[in-house]
């Protein structure tokens, strides 16, 4: 098998001491980032990009580091869900439902261990899915011409709000703002200056890494200040672990189902990890006839945890093969790739096969590291979780600024970062989602390029955008993605809310 031999080559890359070291560092940092409230995975990866960049790491090492951070953050999110009843990130919300009740009952250690195992199964199965599906999709995507790509980008924006999106026009608006920021600078194909107002610093455009760190990290700091949330929250004490093999076997089916569902939700545009963990949880609740869901059933911890980790790896499929990320964090990983001068997409699997398969193999390694790390060492992470944000957030902000500063040693970049932080604060106040803005900045140049290619080839005939079956299909999905949430969105959101409320009542 071709894939097998490529994967073996990947393992040869991933098992060098250097790669293992980066995987371990990434796993530890990622778990921390995921565990600390207010420092979601997108945020954490964004802060680390400039650091990886200015350290001059090789593309393979940086990617291994950051994908391990990404995987680790998904593991870490569960710690605060279980101990504090506060999800570290959105997909970890469903883990609160049974995880926190378990912790209250004095079974915090069991809940953490079970969720670690479920996370491992989720990521592991989804990574296998990635190995099988990604090359197929990449091969298929080779058929895409410029007009199909243009439709694909439109699809990415249209489905970004997800099924649970609140206001589609705000998503659209955010995407437009991001794309507009991307047009600043010298136009690549004609050399015309656009929106630079003759400012030298704007000629090369606005660096999206600065924007990402500002929008995510700095605005988060401002929100923390506003909410007086500096003191942190009381967490449930952790007990001594008593887990028999029988308990593990009991949650295995739930984990497997969750993993598969999560993977599918991760691959599909517009679904994402939140939906993955939600579907896994509700299905588990329905299939298991008698159980104490919502009151601390271990299966209710395993299913959503496997689901959200599965979705996290699944989301890498469209990101790597098509260059179109489906979530905030994968968008940030895409930013990483672009700044390393690697263009994702079908060609990635041909031109940079070493890198892709090395990273995929590193995901297997990273997962194993995470499992080993998370069962015996969970106590250390729990201790770190109890550092109040009032000490932590300023230091994180400092590290973020140092990262930005060290890329080009210019104070101007830091002014821009703070500026984007203020913008991010305002956007969040008026409910404008930040991810489409980032995605717009990332995909803008490519999107414009494919539009131009398509129209130049057709001599300015706009119908070329809709003249193949494939592009019509993509446009249809895009339009559905934009319209369906308006109809289905309220129903799904109400359901998610209801299952959360029932837990609070009981």
């Amino acid at each position, binding site marked *: 098998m071709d894939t097998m031999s490529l994967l073996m080559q990947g393992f040869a890359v991933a098992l060098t001491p250097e790669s293992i070291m980066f995987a371990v560092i990434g796993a530890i940092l990622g778990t921390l980032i995921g565990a600390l409230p207010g420092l979601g995975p997108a945020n954490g990866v964004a802060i680390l990009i400039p650091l990886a960049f200015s350290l001059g790491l090789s593309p393979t090492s940086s990617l291994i580091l950051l994908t391990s951070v990404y995987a680790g953050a998904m593991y870490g999110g569960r710690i605060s869900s279980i101990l504090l009843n506060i999800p570290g990130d959105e997909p970890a919300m469903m883990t609160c439902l049974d995880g926190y009740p378990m912790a209250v009952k004095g079974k915090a250690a069991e809940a953490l261990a079970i969720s670690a195992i479920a996370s491992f199964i989720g990521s592991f199965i989804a990574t296998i899915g990635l190995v099988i599906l990604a090359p197929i999709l990449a091969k298929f995507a080779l058929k895409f011409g410029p007009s199909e790509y243009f439709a694909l980008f439109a699809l990415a924006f249209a489905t970004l709000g997800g099924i649970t999106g609140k206001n589609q026009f705000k998503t659209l608006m955010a995407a437009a703002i991001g794309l507009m920021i991307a047009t600043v600078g010298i136009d690549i194909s004609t050399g015309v200056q*656009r929106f630079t107002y003759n400012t030298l610093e704007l000629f090369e455009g606005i660096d999206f890494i600065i924007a990402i760190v500002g929008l995510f990290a700095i605005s988060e700091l401002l929100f923390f200040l506003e909410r007086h949330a500096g003191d942190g929250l009381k967490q449930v004490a952790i007990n001594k672990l008593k887990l028999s093999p029988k308990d593990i076997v009991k949650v295995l089916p739930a984990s497997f189902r969750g993993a598969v569902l999560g993977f599918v939700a991760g691959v599909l545009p517009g679904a994402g990890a939140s939906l993955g963990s939600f579907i896994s949880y509700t299905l588990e609740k329905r299939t298991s006839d008698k159980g104490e869901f919502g009151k601390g059933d271990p299966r209710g911890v395993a299913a959503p945890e496997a689901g959200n980790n599965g979705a996290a790896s699944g989301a890498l499929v469209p990101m790597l093969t098509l260059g179109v990320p489906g979530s905030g964090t994968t968008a940030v990983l895409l930013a990483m790739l672009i700044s390393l001068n690697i263009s994702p997409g079908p060609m990635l699997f041909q031109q940079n096969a070493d890198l892709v398969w090395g990273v995929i193999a590193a995901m297997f390694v990273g997962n194993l590291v995470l499992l080993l790390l998370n069962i015996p060492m969970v106590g250390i992470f729990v201790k770190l979780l109890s550092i109040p944000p009032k000490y932590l957030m300023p230091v994180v902000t400092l590290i973020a600024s140092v990262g930005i500063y060290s890329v080009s040693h210019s104070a101007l970049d830091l002014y821009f970062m703070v500026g984007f932080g203020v913008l991010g604060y305002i956007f969040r106040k008026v409910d404008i989602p930040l991810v489409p803005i980032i995605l717009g900045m990332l995909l803008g140049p490519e999107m414009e390029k494919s539009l131009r290619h398509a129209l130049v080839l057709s001599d300015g005939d706009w119908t070329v955008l809709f003249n193949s079956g494939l592009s019509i299909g993509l446009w249809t999905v895009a339009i559905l993605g934009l319209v369906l949430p308006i109809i289905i969105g309220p129903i799904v959101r109400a359901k998610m809310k209801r299952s959360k409320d029932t837990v609070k009542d009981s």
Partner: protein
Amino acid sequence: MRINDRVFGMLMLILAVVYGWEATKFPIPFGGHESVGPETFPIMLSIILGVSAIYLMVRPDEDEPWAPVAMLIELGVVVISMLAFAWAIEPIGFMPAAALVVSFLSWRMGASIAKSLITGVTSSVVIFFLFNNVLELALPLGLLEF
């Protein structure tokens, strides 16, 4: 109240119009007109932004409450302190500037003065040495240079 979205929609509409209008005034690129010039894509964007801005003004969402004025002023001060840090990093040096801004931030987030000073000084010194000696990224010494 539904004022936020209306005001924001208005601002975005202005942005869309200005942006689109600017785009029509781009110089004609060398080599003459093509079917897709540098202005085509921006004009599409300004239409999308304009339409969604109008929708936002017509059908605004419920407001998220803004912080009271005192808090907004405080946030303003925090933003200024970060800008000051960015300015000070080269003339004054990384360590003093970082120690000051971190102490200030953690004090504003509710830590006692003594503890925030400890946080600020330790974190800036540790990060400085970590970056300069372990990771080998030079951060400016500033005043401490001799």
